[in-house]
Every structure is written in structure tokens, then in C-alpha cells.
């Protein structure tokens, strides 16, 4: 059983999805427990897998689906699942986020999409399966299929919301299909050139056959990158994101927002580091200059657009665009020519470590904030920022978690947001990219303004107009505490604790990431 953990972590939720769809038709109450069991199993198996990875000597676990193993067949014939330190951690994050979002969804699904529990939870499970599959697979075409699995389910999940949501879902579908198709085309070009679909196999052939200067490889990279760019919602191809995320049903937003863009960033890293390899991406292409500048623009634009929003979830959606800028910028910080100069990826890539770390910490932060905002909207009865008045009194635990999430976004120690900024900014200094460091600082400041505005509304409540004689304000008791039910509070509190835990264990996580980069720098074979 243990040796099959890499595939079980997908198969169990997949089966749960099937059972959800079938049994749910008869017994609706079974859906949520099935979902939660599926995700607990996924979490368990992903932790097992990660432990295997960190215990193995070359820090990776390879699993061949259906026994098409590399000893009997050339690499690339069978579908290979390969877990290393980077995606091992991400798998745990995905399973954990999905689990918390599923628990949280209890109130919302019956409220927002009544009577559709079987469909909803089946899609919910499939979405997580797709995301985990994208993360774990080492096969470029398999990645496309799983990308579509996760995308299609997310379109459907978004479209299940209000009537505005279906329009947003349609726009998202068009953009997402263009992105995925570009990716597929790019993979086709790589296949023409290398005859392999295995990521490591493609890389080995590219290097071994000296294909790095081939124009077809360039076209392949371009197409794949544009495809991923759309999926990333990296500026300026990010217009679909705010509508889709802010109009989705609450529980949908809680799983899509933390995971979708983050897994896409992971895909980008995987494409850059494993498929094409740092030699190609940093030395041959030398795109670092413009890419970091676009990231700077993305960060600033995301932050400024977020400032203009009156709707809480919309504001968070724009912040996601800024956060994507953090990660893409961090990944491209490495100066061109570094590989050729013999610098090891391990010692000079604090920016890459920052990107990897931020994938994890941003998933946790976004989860915490979307959960908190979902809970706040229930209490406030509206998603407008100015309707958040007096929430501290009404639901102090929810608000405390929101404050933790806000502090993480601002980057206050010891939350994880601080450390991801720390790594990214020191990466920027290392690479001499002052503009990127400046953009990160500005984004921190804007986040401070954004979140303290909300905290202010929630903390001060309705301001009394008249002073009494002593200069003291008459204070009416604005109603007692009406805290949210445990099904909302438990995931929320866990998410906010995770923010601090990820922060405190940043050294370990960064250590794993450097270890991963070290493996990449040595040719990916460990």
C-alpha cells in the first residue's frame, strides 16, 4: 500500500467523486462525509509520499502507472508520476487546503446551491484530483489532460453560483481553453523535436542532442509559456480572474482561489526547471529583464486595482494577481548567463526559493482570507467592505483569524507572508533587481492600507455622532456575540494557525526547496 501512495492520493478522491455522484442521488447527506474522507485519505497519502521522498537518497519517488516502468520500456512510454521535494510539499498543501475548504463548505453548499450536493461535491473532488494530478505527473501530455480536468470542474463549479457567475465562468472557459490549447500545441512541438512526452526525458534529449538553439524548441517554449501565462492569470492576461473568483459560490472560491493559480505557478516552475532546464531558460532565452519588469507591473497594477474595489472578495481577487506577480518575478530573477558562468542554482537562487515558498504560503494565506471573508460575509449580510462594521464584536474569532491572514498578506513577522517577502526581496537584492524589491515593498504598504481599512470598519463599528459632557462617547451595546458555527470556525482557525506554522518552519521548507534546486542543478537525476 505504501509504495502505491503516489497514485492512491489521487485514486481515493477520484473514487469518492464517483461514489458521491452515484450514492448522492439517493442519500444527499453522504456527499460531504465522502468528500472529507476522500481528502483525509489524500492528505494521509501525500504525507506518506512526502516522507518517502525526504527519506530517499535522491529525494524523489518515481511511480509508473500500470507498470510501464523504466527498466523495461524507454522513459516516456508509460505515464510516470514523479514526486520530489517541491511537488511533494505542494501535494500536502493541496490536500490540506481541499480538506479545510470542504469542511468549510458545509453551510454554504446547502445555502447557495441547494439540492445539488452530489454534483457539487463530485466536481469539488474532481477539481482537487485534477490539481494533484497536475502537480504529481511527470508527463507533459498527462499534465494537459489533468489541467483540463481541473479547469473544466472549476468552470462548472463557478457557473453553479449566481447568474453573474455563469457569465464569468464562460469568459474563464474561453480564456482557459485558449491557454490549455496553447500548452498542448507547445507540447506538440517538443514532441516533434524530442519524440518524448516525459518531462525529464524531454530535458535529457534537449541537452543530449544539443537542441537548445533550435527554433522549434523556442516556439515550443513560447507556446507553452503563453498557455501557462493565461492559466497563471499573470498580468496582463489576468482579466478573467477577478470576475470568476469573486462571483463563484463561496465554497468554490475557497478552493479555487488558493490552489488554481498556485498550481499554475508550480507548472511554470516545472516547465522552466525540469522540462527546458535552467540552462535554456536563463542563459539561452535571457528573458529575465522583461519578465521581472512585467512582474513589477503586475504587482503594482494588482495592488492599485485592489485599492479601488468596494467588494471584499473582488479586492482579494485582485490581490491574487499581485501575488502571482511575486511568484513569477521571483522565478525569473536569475540573471542571464549565470548557468554558463558555472554558478550553481543552489547558491544563487534565493528568488526561486522565495517563489517556491510563496506558493505554499500564498496558498495558505489566500485560503485563510477567503475562508474568513466567507464567514464575515455571512455575518455582515453583504460583501461590501463598508458593511463589515462592528464585526469584531459580533464574531471575534472569525475576525482574529482575518487579522492573522491580513498580517500575513502585509508581511508581518512571524507569519509566512513575512518570510516569503524576505526570501523574494533578498533574491531581488542578490540579482540586483531593485525595482522588484521596491514593488514588493509597495505592495506590502498597499496591503497594509487595504486590510487596515477593513479592520478599521470591523473594529470601530458605527461611529456615534454626539459627544457627552466628558468628551466620552455614548456607546450602545451593538448586540452580543453571534459567532459562526464550528464547521466554519475550525477550518478557519486551522488555516490561520497554519500561517504562523509555515512562517516558523520557513527554514525547513526553504531547505527542502534548496535541496530540490540542487537536484535540478545537477541535471534532475538526483
Amino acid at each position, binding site marked *: 500500500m505504501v509504495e502505491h501512495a503516489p497514485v492512491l492520493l489521487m485514486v481515493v478522491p477520484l473514487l469518492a467523486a464517483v461514489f458521491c455522484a452515484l450514492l448522492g442521488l439517493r442519500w444527499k447527506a453522504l456527499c460531504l462525509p465522502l468528500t472529507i474522507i476522500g481528502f483525509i485519505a489524500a492528505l494521509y497519502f501525500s504525507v506518506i509520499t512526502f516522507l518517502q521522498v525526504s527519506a530517499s537518497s535522491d529525494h524523489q519517488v518515481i511511480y509508473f502507472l500500470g507498470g510501464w516502468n523504466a527498466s523495461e520500456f524507454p522513459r516516456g512510454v508509460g505515464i510516470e508520476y514523479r514526486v520530489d521535494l517541491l511537488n511533494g510539499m505542494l501535494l500536502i498543501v493541496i490536500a490540506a487546503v481541499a480538506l479545510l475548504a470542504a469542511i468549510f463548505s458545509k453551510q454554504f453548499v446547502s445555502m447557495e446551491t441547494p439540492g445539488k450536493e452530489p454534483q457539487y461535491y463530485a466536481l469539488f473532488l474532481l477539481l482537487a484530483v485534477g490539481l494533484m494530478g497536475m502537480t504529481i505527473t511527470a508527463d507533459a501530455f498527462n499534465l494537459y489532460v489533468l489541467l483540463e480536468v481541473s479547469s473544466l470542474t472549476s468552470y462548472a463549479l463557478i457557473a453553479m453560483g449566481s*447568474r453573474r457567475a*455563469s457569465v464569468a465562468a464562460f469568459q474563464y472557459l474561453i480564456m482557459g481553453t485558449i491557454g490549455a490549447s496553447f500548452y498542448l*500545441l507547445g507540447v*506538440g512541438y517538443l514532441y516533434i523535436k524530442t519524440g518524448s512526452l516525459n518531462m525529464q526525458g524531454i530535458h535529457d534529449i534537449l541537452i543530449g542532442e544539443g537542441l537548445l538553439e533550435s527554433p522549434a524548441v523556442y516556439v515550443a517554449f513560447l507556446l507553452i509559456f503563453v498557455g501557462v501565462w493565461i492559466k497563471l492569470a499573470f498580468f496582463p492576461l489576468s482579466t478573467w480572474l477577478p470576475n470568476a473568483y469573486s462571483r463563484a459560490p463561496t465554497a468554490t472560491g475557497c478552493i479555487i482561489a488558493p490552489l488554481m493559480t498556485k498550481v499554475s505557478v508550480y507548472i511554470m516552475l516545472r516547465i522552466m526547471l525540469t522540462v527546458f532546464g535552467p540552462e535554456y531558460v536563463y542563459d539561452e532565452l535571457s528573458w529575465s529583464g522583461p519578465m521581472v519588469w512585467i512582474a513589477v507591473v503586475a504587482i503594482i497594477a494588482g495592488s492599485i486595482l485592489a485599492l479601488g474595489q468596494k467588494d471584499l472578495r473582488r479586492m482579494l481577487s485582485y490581490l491574487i494577481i499581485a501575488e502571482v506577480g511575486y511568484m513569477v518575478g521571483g522565478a525569473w530573477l536569475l540573471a542571464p548567463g549565470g548557468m554558463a558562468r558555472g554558478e550553481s542554482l543552489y547558491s544563487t537562487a534565493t528568488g526561486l526559493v522565495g517563489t517556491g515558498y510563496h506558493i505554499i504560503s500564498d496558498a495558505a494565506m489566500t485560503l485563510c482570507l477567503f475562508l474568513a471573508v466567507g464567514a464575515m460575509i455571512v455575518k455582515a449580510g453583504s460583501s461590501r467592505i463598508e458593511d463589515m462594521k462592528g464585526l469584531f464584536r459580533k464574531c471575534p474569532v472569525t475576525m482574529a483569524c482575518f487579522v492573522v491572514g491580513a498580517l500575513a498578506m502585509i508581511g508581518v513577522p512571524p507569519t509566512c507572508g513575512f518570510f516569503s517577502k524576505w526570501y523574494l526581496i533578498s533574491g531581488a537584492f542578490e540579482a540586483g533587481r531593485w525595482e522588484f524589491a521596491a514593488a514588493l515593498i509597495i505592495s506590502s504598504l498597499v496591503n497594509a492600507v487595504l486590510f487596515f481599512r477593513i479592520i478599521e470598519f470591523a473594529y470601530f463599528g458605527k461611529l456615534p455622532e454626539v459627544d457627552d459632557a466628558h468628551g466620552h462617547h455614548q456607546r450602545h451595546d451593538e448586540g452580543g456575540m453571534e459567532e459562526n458555527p464550528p464547521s466554519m470556525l475550525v477550518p478557519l482557525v486551522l488555516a490561520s494557525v497554519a500561517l504562523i506554522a509555515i512562517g516558523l518552519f520557513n527554514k525547513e521548507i526553504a531547505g527542502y526547496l534548496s535541496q530540490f534546486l540542487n537536484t535540478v542543478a545537477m541535471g534532475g537525476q538526483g
Partner: protein
Amino acid sequence: MEEFIQSRFNYWIYVILMMIGLWGMISKNNLIKKLIGMSIFQTAIILFYVSVAVKSETANIPILPHHGHDYSPKIAFAHAVSDDHENGGHDDHAGHQAHPVGPKIPDPDGYANPLPHVLMLTAIVVGVATLGLALAITQKIYREYGTLEEDQLLEKVRADDHG
């Protein structure tokens, strides 16, 4: 020049189809027309992949004639895949001798590469699923808003936002 275009004419067609599809998806106002564009776009990619599988004029469809009981599909597959990036595979026979399989393995050059076809089967399934989902969403939109024209839709959505 003419030859250049002719020899790769299926690739040219794919590029043209793709552009048509992309244009439809982006610039058409009607949601159904957008979806037609999407289908064209996806079909273009299928054409591209299938073109990749072509080897030469004489290569046949990849259906193996029925051989005896000692035929090993594992190794035959291994050959087909490892050869197709070696341009023509002139040293096939040398490769054959290296494997202790015997003469019953068919010559990979005689068959089109099956892998892209298999991939495209999956892609077609994905395309159908996408189209189905898109049509479902379109239906929902039409039921809710009574129109499928994008500009009118966006106006109504904006009205929702303010209301």
C-alpha cells in the same frame, strides 16, 4: 517557395484554422459563435498532431498484422518510440539485432506513429467535454439573461453589480 508551402501544407492549414478559431473566440460577439471558434481552434490542434504522426508516403496506418504467439508488443512499442526522433531510423536493423526478439517485429518505418493519434483521442474527449460544459453554461446564461450577445450580457451584468 511553392514547394516549401506544398511540402508542409497541412501545417499551413493548421495555422490558418487556428487563427480563424482564435479570431472567432476573441472577437465574436455571440457566445455560440465563440464556441464554434473554440471547436475550430481545437480541431486545428488535432490536425497538427496528426500531421506530426506522418512518416513517409508509404507508411501505413498503425495496425499490426496478426503475428504468432511469440510476438511481444512491449518491445515493438519500445522501438517505435525510440526511433521516431532519429529521423528515418536507418540503423533500425542494427537496433533489431541488439534485441533478442527475432525477425517478427514489423518495421516501424512502415507505419505512422500511433502515439499522436492516441493523444488526440484524449484531446477530442477533452474537447467534447469542454464544448458540452460550455453549451450548458451558455444555456444557463440564456435562461438567466435572455440573450447570448456578449455586449448586452455585460451590460446586464453591470446592472446586477450596481443593483
